[in-house]
Structures are given as structure tokens and as C-alpha cells.
């Protein structure tokens, strides 16, 4: 009886409680406002985050930066964009580097440093929370990775 009560209470809270806070979040793929591309398809994003070469129409190479300032953000990126576990992604990057010396994305654990890197390089792309994008200046959205 006691167990049934706990389960019923759990179901009640499931419906009554508001959705988790991260449901209001969104994850954007962004670049500097004057980035030579205005959007990226999912395949190109996966390519660039695996170290494959992705170039603009003017043959400029784009570069990827991994935003590791927030673990939840990184997990969403891996699940929704790369469709890989963290272990699989890490091994795949190492394998591709070992195969042909492909450049792996730079990793930023500090949001401020990432924003500074974006300011300095119009060919650099990265992903961030919607709020961080809105708080930053001189950036544009290339794709909504997750959320609205």
C-alpha cells in the first residue's frame, strides 16, 4: 500500500509540476555576424565536428569550436547533433586524427574565452545556449540544434 502511494504521488507530481527548467532552453549553432555562411545543414555540422574539411563557396575553411563550459550543453550537442555517446565521439575523433591528421575542434571550457575566439575569427563556429547567444553581441544563428 505504501509503495502504491509513492507511485501515485510520483505520477501526480509528474503532471502537476512545471517542465524542467532546461525545457525553456535552446541550443544554437552560432558564428560571428559576418561569417561567410548563413546556415549549415546537419551533415556539414557533423563533418566539421569530426574534423572533416568544410569550406565556404569562396573556398574558405570553416573551423569548429567545442563549447565545454556546460556539461548539459555538451550532452545535448552530442545526442542531438552528433548522435553519439561521449566515448564514441572521443574515439572517432582520435581515429580520424590517427588516420589522416584531421584537425580536431578546439575545446573551450570558458565561455568568455570562447566569445573572444568568435570575435577574432569569422570562420569559427560553435554552439551555445540561446540565452548566451542573446547576451552576446555580433553573433548570428546558423542553425537551431535543439529546442526552439
Amino acid at each position, binding site marked *: 500500500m505504501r509503495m502504491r502511494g509513492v507511485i501515485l504521488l510520483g505520477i501526480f507530481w509528474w503532471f502537476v509540476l512545471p517542465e524542467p527548467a532546461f525545457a525553456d532552453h535552446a541550443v544554437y549553432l552560432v558564428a560571428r555576424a559576418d561569417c561567410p555562411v548563413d546556415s549549415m545543414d546537419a*551533415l556539414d555540422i*557533423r*563533418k566539421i565536428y*569530426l574534423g*572533416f*574539411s*568544410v*569550406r565556404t563557396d569562396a*573556398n574558405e*575553411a570553416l573551423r569548429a569550436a*567545442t563549447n*565545454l563550459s556546460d*556539461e548539459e550543453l*555538451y550532452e545535448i550537442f552530442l545526442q542531438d547533433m552528433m548522435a553519439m*555517446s*561521449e*566515448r564514441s565521439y*572521443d*574515439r*572517432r*575523433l*582520435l*581515429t580520424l*586524427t*590517427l*588516420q*589522416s*591528421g*584531421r*584537425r*580536431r*575542434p*578546439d*575545446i*573551450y*571550457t570558458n565561455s568568455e*574565452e570562447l566569445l573572444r575566439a568568435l570575435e577574432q575569427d569569422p570562420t569559427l563556429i560553435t554552439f551555445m545556449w540561446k540565452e548566451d547567444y542573446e547576451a552576446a553581441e555580433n553573433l548570428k544563428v546558423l542553425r537551431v540544434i535543439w529546442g526552439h
Partner: protein
Amino acid sequence: MTTPRTPDTVQTGHLALVRNCIAAAVAICFSLNPADVIAGDSDFIIFLSAEYDARNGVSDNVYPNSDFTPSVDLLYTYGNGPWRILGEYYLTDDESELERLQLGYDINQNSTAWLGRYHQPLSTWNFKYHHGAFLQSSISRPAIENWEDEDGVIAQHATGAMFESNVRGRNGSGIRYTIAAGIGPTYEDGELYPYDVFDPDDLDGGIATSFAVSFYPDYVDSSNFGMVGGYTDLVVPPSMSLGNIAEFEIRQYLFGAQVDWETRWWQLIAAAYYVDSKPDDGYTQYGGHFVSAYAQLIRELNESFDFYVRLEGGINTRSAGYLSLFPAFITRRALIGSRFDFTARQAIAIEISAVETRQDRFGEISLQWSGVFQ
């Protein structure tokens, strides 16, 4: 959380000095400005491993009852615009060798031309894992994929030119192909010796050409299947062991098919090679054809544990004259193994095998620690 590559940690870590020394050496080798190279997009990765093998029932002296092999694989890459440099140096307790040194040029975003010493694309396994023990789930590699100095029977290294390209399909699929041509190995005293670019006295092998073409249902995924092939002109200098007073050649043709298929929890790696060896007149006892095949199935139990089985076998592997030149070649093997990743980039593994060579049959148990550092 794994941090594969962080600019700030790479720049300030203990490996920065080593990395910069390598960058300087590369700059000198390729006549580049050392400051540009050090400041450029470079990467330095160290693969470490230590392996202990114990054998039971060995009746000849080809394999020891046990051995211990520590190894270090150093990978350096550098990119500047369309140019790429890739170097891989491998050290163990009994070898120290520059495995790869390649200068690459990205012709466009889908094609790269390479010059230098490379791993031949005809080996499915080696073209994927190279010397990175940490990246392959199993401790051992299939016998037909063994390196030349590890009782390998196929030319795995060549020095020359290689071209790689990807063709992207409309539905997200893709075809990747690689063709290569260069100088292949010589055969001396039971072993193939790849051409050594840093040894001017090294005996030149004959021509070695190879290709690989694979279909990827998902262009950027790793699952693929395809075909490989190659032609190698093996040079056999005069030798006491074979009793030939004059140099002779073995023209070797290889054709193969491979599949490397991954799902969330499973991975299948399988390949079959048909090898036909045609020696010069008078040495036909070292010719003949054989088929060697393997299939390895890996089950990922969770993010840390893998379990795997592999079967290796073939046709004519006991009777082909060419394989009599390699008494340690494993003709049949069945193995099971397990691997535990106790950190994001370190693992221990155990493997139990039943092994058959042309003249022997024994059991083997292997233990390995492997890791990757940068």
C-alpha cells in the same frame, strides 16, 4: 568529462615542450618557419600500451612461452591552409621505427594528395587503427593484418604517393576511395622489410600499388563496406636461409572485401583477402594462392565494458608456398576477450585464444593496458 583537446591545456601541458621540439624538427625537414609551425594547427598524441602474452602447449621455437611488450606510438600532425603533415613514430622494446611521414595537400574539401611513407590502404584494419592500440577493442590484430615486423605476410608500408577522395551522395551516403603507389618491401630471413627512407643503404623493394573503395550509408559515420586490392613486387635478395644465390622477385596480387559496421551496442569488423603470389622461374615453391579471412564481433555492454569474439581462418593457408616463408603466420585462431575502460582514455583488456600455425597449435592468454595521452 572527456576533454579531447583544449588549446590552453595543450599549450601549457608537460607535452608542450615535446610538441614544440617536434614542430621545430618538422619545420627544418620541410623548410618552414619554426615559429609558424609552432603557432600553427598542430596536434601531438601519445598512445601507450603494455602487453603480456603467455602461451601453453608451444612445441616449436617459433613462439616463446611468454613475452612482454611495452610500446609507445607518437603521432604528430600539422596543418596550415591546404597543407598537412602527419608523422607517426613507434617504439617497443625491440623496435624503433618511423612508421609514417606524410606531406599532404588538400586539393579540395573532399580530396587529399599525400607524399611520403604511408600505411597501405589495402589493409582495412591497419588503415583504421594504425598503431593506436587503445582504439582497437581487441589486444591482437588478425594475423593477415599483422605488421611486417610482427610476422606480417602482406606489405603494409610503402613509400610514394597516395590519393584519397570522398564522393558525397545526395541522400547523405558517400563513397571513399584511396589509391597509392610507391616502393614496397623486401623479404629477408623470414620477414618483410619496408623501404626505409632514412637509410640510404636500404635495399629497394619493388613497386607496391594498392587501392580501397568503400561505401558509407552515412557519409560521416564509420560504418562502411567495400573492396581493397593491390599489387606488390617483393624483392628477395640472395639468402643463405633460402639458398638462392641470385635475387629473385615475387609478384603478389591481392583482392579483398571488408565490412566495418557499428550500431549503438554492436560492431562487426570482417575482411577476406585472396592473395596470389607468383615468383620468378626457379622459385615457384614460394608461390601459390590462399585466402585469409576473419570476423570480429564486439558487444559494448556499457560505456566502459566491451566483450568480443573473433574467428580467423582461410583456404590453402597450410599449403601455399608463399606462407612457408613465414613460419609464425597464424593460419587459424579463435579468441574471446573483454576490455574495461577504467578512465575515459585508459583501458585494460584480457584475451584468450586458441591458435594454429602451419606447424604448431597452442593456447594463448594476453593481458594489456593501453592509454592515450596528449
